[in-house]
C-alpha cells in the first residue's frame, strides 16, 4: 500500500493543480497582454478620452446592461416557470421554441429590424399610407437605431440563456419542496417567489451574468445602431484612431465592469450551496391554467418567439428567396464548413477543459486551484475585441520567441506558427467560451452531494473513475447544455473571428457581417439563415435532452 501513499508536502502537486495552472496560464495570456499594454505609458489619448467620451461610454454601457438584464430576467424566468410548471395550450411547443432566438445573432436581428422599421421600411410606409402622413415630423415612431433599440434587440436574442438555465433549475427542483411550501399555506405564486425562485437563484444569476457579459461583448449591434458603449469605444480607438494602447486602456477599465459582474455571480453562488434535501423527486405539479391566465401564458410565451425568431427568420427567408441566385455559391458552402469545424472543435475542447477544471475544484478544495479556475473563466467576460488584440499580441510574441529559440539552437526558422491560423481562432474562442462550459458544469456538480463522491471513492474508485461513472452521467444534461451553448456562440462569434482569422478565411458570420454592413442583407440572407439553422438544430436536441435527464425520471415515465 505504501506506494499509494503520497508525501503530504507534495500534495499540491497533482494532475488537477498542474492542469489548472497550465490552462489558467494559457487563458490568462491574452488578458495579461492587454493589461500589460494598457499599463505601458503612451501618449495623451487617455486623458483626452476621460475628458470627452468616457462618461458617455460608462453611462450608456450601464443603461444597456440594466435594460438587457431586466428584460432577459423577466422574459427568461417568466417563460421558464410557465413551461415547466403550468399547463396551457402549446406548452410542449414553447418548451423548445423559446430557445429559438438563441440561434439569432444580435447583429442579424438588428439588420433585419432596421430594414423593417426604418423610415423607408414597410412598417412606417404602411402607417403613412394608412393615415396619409407624408413627412417624418407628422408622426412619432420609435427610433430603432437607438439605445432602447439596442436593448430590445439584445433582450430578444439573449433571454434564452436565462430561460435555459432557470428552466433546468426548475425541472431539477423536487416537487416535494414545492408541495411542502403549499402545505404550509403558500399559494402557487407565493411558492414561486419564496421557494422555487430562491432555489433556482444560482442558475438564474449565472444566466444573467452570461447575458450581461454578452451585452458588454456585442459589437455588431451597437456599431450598426451607433450606441456609444465601451466596446464600440474600444473599436473606435483601436481601428479608427489606430491606437492599440488607448484601446487596451479602455479595455482595462471595462474589465472593472466585468470583475464586478463576476464577483456578483460568485457571491450569489457562495451563499447558495444547495443539495437535494429529499430523494423523492416527482414530476412538477403542472398548474392547469384557466381563462385569462391561460391566454396570458400563451401570449407571454409566443411574443418572445415571434419577435426574437419567427419574424426575423421570415424576413430573412423572404430575402433568401428573392436573392437566391446571388446568395448561393460554392464559397458559402465552404464558409459553412469552416464555421461548423471551428465551432464543433471549440465546443468539445471547452467541455473537456470545463469538466476537468470544475471537477478539479471540487476535488481539491484548495485556494490555488479555485482562484486559478476563476481566473481561467474570466475570458468570457472580456469583450471579443479586447481578447482579439490580446491573442494577436501574445501569440505574436510566442511565435517570435519560438522562432528565435529554434534559430539559435538548431538554426531552423519556424516563422509564425500560431498567428493567423485556425489554431489562433480556436484559442481565442476557447479563452472566451471556457467560462460557459466551466460555469454550467460547476453549477450542476454543486447539485451532486459530496457523499456521492465519498461513496464512490470508498467503494474503490479513483477520482477519474468516479468522474466517469458518477459525475458525468449525472451532469449529462448540463454538460450537453454547455457544449451546445459554446457551439452556438462560436457560430455567431464575430468580433474575434474578423480579426484572428487566417487571410482569406471566412466563416458564415464574417461573411454575413461583410455584406450586411454594406446594406446587402439580401445577398447575405442565406448565410445568415444558415447560422440561424445551425443554431436551431442543437437547440432542439438540447430541449429533448433536458426532459430526458430529469432526475428521478429515468425512462419515458413522465407522470404528469
Amino acid at each position, binding site marked *: 500500500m505504501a506506494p499509494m*501513499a503520497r508525501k*503530504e508536502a507534495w500534495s499540491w502537486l497533482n494532475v488537477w493543480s498542474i492542469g489548472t495552472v497550465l490552462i489558467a496560464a494559457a487563458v490568462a495570456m491574452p488578458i495579461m497582454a492587454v493589461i500589460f499594454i494598457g499599463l505601458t505609458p503612451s501618449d495623451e489619448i487617455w486623458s483626452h478620452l476621460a475628458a470627452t467620451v468616457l462618461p458617455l461610454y460608462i453611462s450608456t454601457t450601464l443603461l444597456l446592461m440594466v435594460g438587457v438584464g431586466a428584460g432577459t430576467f423577466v422574459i427568461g424566468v417568466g417563460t421558464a416557470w410557465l413551461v415547466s410548471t403550468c399547463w396551457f395550450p402549446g406548452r410542449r411547443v414553447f418548451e423548445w421554441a423559446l430557445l429559438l432566438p438563441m440561434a439569432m445573432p444580435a447583429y442579424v436581428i438588428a439588420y433585419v429590424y432596421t430594414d423593417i422599421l426604418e423610415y423607408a421600411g414597410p412598417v412606417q410606409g404602411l402607417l403613412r399610407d394608412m393615415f396619409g402622413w407624408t413627412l417624418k415630423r407628422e408622426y412619432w415612431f420609435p427610433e430603432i437605431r437607438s439605445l432602447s433599440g439596442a436593448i430590445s434587440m439584445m433582450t430578444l436574442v439573449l433571454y434564452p440563456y436565462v430561460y435555459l438555465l432557470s428552466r433546468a433549475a426548475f425541472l431539477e427542483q423536487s416537487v416535494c419542496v414545492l408541495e411542502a411550501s403549499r402545505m404550509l399555506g403558500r399559494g402557487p405564486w407565493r411558492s414561486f417567489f419564496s421557494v422555487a425562485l430562491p432555489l433556482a437563484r444560482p442558475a438564474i444569476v449565472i444566466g444573467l451574468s452570461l447575458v450581461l457579459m454578452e451585452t458588454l461583448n456585442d459589437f455588431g449591434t451597437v456599431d450598426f445602431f451607433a450606441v456609444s458603449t465601451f466596446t464600440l469605444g474600444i473599436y473606435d480607438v483601436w481601428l479608427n484612431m489606430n491606437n492599440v494602447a488607448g484601446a487596451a486602456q479602455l479595455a482595462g477599465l471595462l474589465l472593472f465592469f466585468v470583475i464586478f459582474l463576476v464577483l456578483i455571480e460568485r457571491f450569489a453562488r457562495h451563499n447558495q450551496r444547495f443539495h437535494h434535501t429529499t*430523494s423523492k423527486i416527482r414530476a412538477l405539479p403542472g398548474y392547469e391554467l384557466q381563462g385569462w391566465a391561460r391566454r396570458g401564458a400563451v401570449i407571454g410565451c409566443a411574443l418572445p418567439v415571434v419577435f426574437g425568431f419567427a419574424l426575423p427568420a421570415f424576413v430573412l427567408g423572404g430575402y433568401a428567396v428573392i436573392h437566391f441566385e446571388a446568395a448561393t455559391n460554392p464559397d458559402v458552402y465552404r464558409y459553412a464548413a469552416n464555421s461548423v469545424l471551428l465551432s464543433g472543435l471549440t465546443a468539445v475542447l471547452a467541455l473537456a477543459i470545463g469538466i476537468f477544471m470544475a471537477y478539479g475544484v471540487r476535488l481539491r478544495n484548495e485556494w490555488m486551484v479555485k482562484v486559478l479556475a476563476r481566473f481561467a473563466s474570466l475570458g468570457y467576460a472580456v469583450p471579443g475585441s479586447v481578447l482579439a488584440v490580446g491573442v494577436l499580441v501574445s501569440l505574436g510574441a510566442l511565435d517570435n520567441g519560438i522562432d528565435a529559440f529554434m534559430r539559435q539552437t538548431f538554426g531552423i526558422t519556424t516563422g509564425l506558427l500560431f498567428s493567423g491560423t485556425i489554431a489562433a481562432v480556436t484559442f481565442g474562442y476557447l479563452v472566451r467560451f471556457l467560462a460557459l462550459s466551466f460555469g454550467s458544469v460547476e453549477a450542476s456538480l454543486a447539485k451532486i452531494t459530496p*457523499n*456521492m463522491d465519498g461513496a464512490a*471513492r*470508498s467503494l474503490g*474508485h479513483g*477520482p477519474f*473513475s468516479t468522474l466517469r461513472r458518477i459525475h458525468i452521467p449525472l451532469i449529462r444534461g448540463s454538460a450537453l447544455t454547455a457544449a451546445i451553448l459554446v457551439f452556438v456562440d462560436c457560430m455567431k462569434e464575430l468580433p474575434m473571428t474578423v480579426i484572428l482569422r487566417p487571410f482569406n478565411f471566412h466563416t458564415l458570420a464574417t461573411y454575413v457581417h461583410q455584406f450586411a454592413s454594406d446594406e446587402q442583407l439580401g445577398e447575405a440572407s442565406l448565410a445568415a439563415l444558415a447560422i440561424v439553422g445551425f443554431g436551431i438544430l442543437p437547440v432542439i436536441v438540447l430541449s429533448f435532452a433536458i426532459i430526458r435527464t430529469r432526475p428521478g425520471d429515468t425512462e419515458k415515465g413522465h407522470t404528469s
Partner: protein
Amino acid sequence: MKGLHAVGVYHVYGDNKVLDNASLMIPAGEVVCLLGPSGSGKTTLLRLAAGLERLQRGRIVIDDEIVADKNTHVPPEHRGIGLMFQDYALFPHLNIIDNVTFGLFDQSKDKANHRAMDMLEQLGMTKHAESHPHMLSGGQQQRVALARALAPKPKVLLLDEPFSGLDTNLRGQIREDTLSVLKASGVATIMVTHDPEEAMFMADRIKILGDNGKILQAGRPHEIYYHPRHEFVAKLFGMMNRFEGVVEDGSVEIPLGLIRADSLGEGRKVEVLVRPEGVILEIDGKAGTPVDVVSTHLLGHDNLVRVRLKNDTAGEFQGKELYVRVHHTFEPELSKQITAGLDPEYAFVFPLDEHGSIAGDGFTGSQSQAAE
C-alpha cells in the same frame, strides 16, 4: 491487529477545533458505536478514517497499516473501507444491482453479480435488483446502501447515523437485520449515532464522545448504563433525578436513602443522579420517604409517575418533584401512604467543585481511554 486504530487525532476547521487528541481502537468483528452530541466530531472522525478528509495530526492505522499520518495519505479508494452515509448516497442513475456491484469492478461481471445478489439476499432485497433508488422506500434504500458498502468485503465498515432517516416502526426491524448482517460478515464496524438507545442495541462497545472528540467513557453497554463515569454519560439515557449533598462517613444522604461514595473525599460536595427506575415506590412502605403522587403516565410496559416529596421532608428537598418509572401494574392512586426508596444500582455520585458545578478532574480522561 486487525481493525482500525486512530491515535492522537487532531483536526480543525478554520478556528473550530473539532477533534483534539482523539484516539480509538476498533478490533475486527466488533460493532463499536460512537455516541455523542452534534459537534462532538464523530462524523469528522469517520471521514478521517475513510480518507475523505485529510488528517492534520495523529495517525490512523487499518489492519496494521498506516493509512494516514504526517507523511501519508492513502486515498479513500485504496483503504478498503466501507462507508454508509446518513443519506445513503445511492447513485440515482444506476439500478440497485449496479449500485451494489459498483465496488466490485475488479471482479468478473458474473462474480460481481453473484456477490451482489448474495448481499441483497441477506437483506431481503433481491426482488428490487432492477429498480432504481428513487423507487425504493427509505428502509429499502438503507438496506441497499448497506449491501453496497459490504459487497467489496471492507476491512472496516463505517456507518454514519444509519437509521436516522427511518421512521420508528421500521427502525427496530432494520436495526436487527443490520446487526445480524454485520455479525455474519465479521467486519470491524464503527457506527456514529446520537441516539443512546440505538447505541445500546447495536454496540458491543460504546464510546461516548464529549467536546472535541474527547472520549468521556468507553465500555460495554451494560457498563455505560450502570456505571457511568461522567455526569454527561449518566444523563445521556434520559431524565434524571438530581440531588446535591456532602460526603459524610463515606456516604451521601439524600431523602431516598444513603449512597456509598467511598472514593470521594470526606466533606466533598457531590451531585447524586438517580435514574427514574432507581426510585422504588412502595404502598404503605416503611423505608424511604413519604411522597404525594402528582401524576401518572402509562407508557406501555411502564408507568411514568411524578411524585412530590412531602413538605415535612428535611432541609432543601421538601416539595421536590421526582420522576419514577414503575411497572404498569403499580397503581398509586388507590393507596393512601406511598414512600419512595432507592435502588443504589441506579444512583450515581459525581463530585462538585466549591461553586457547585461539575468538577473538571475526571473519572475518565481521553489519555487513559486511549490506552484501552
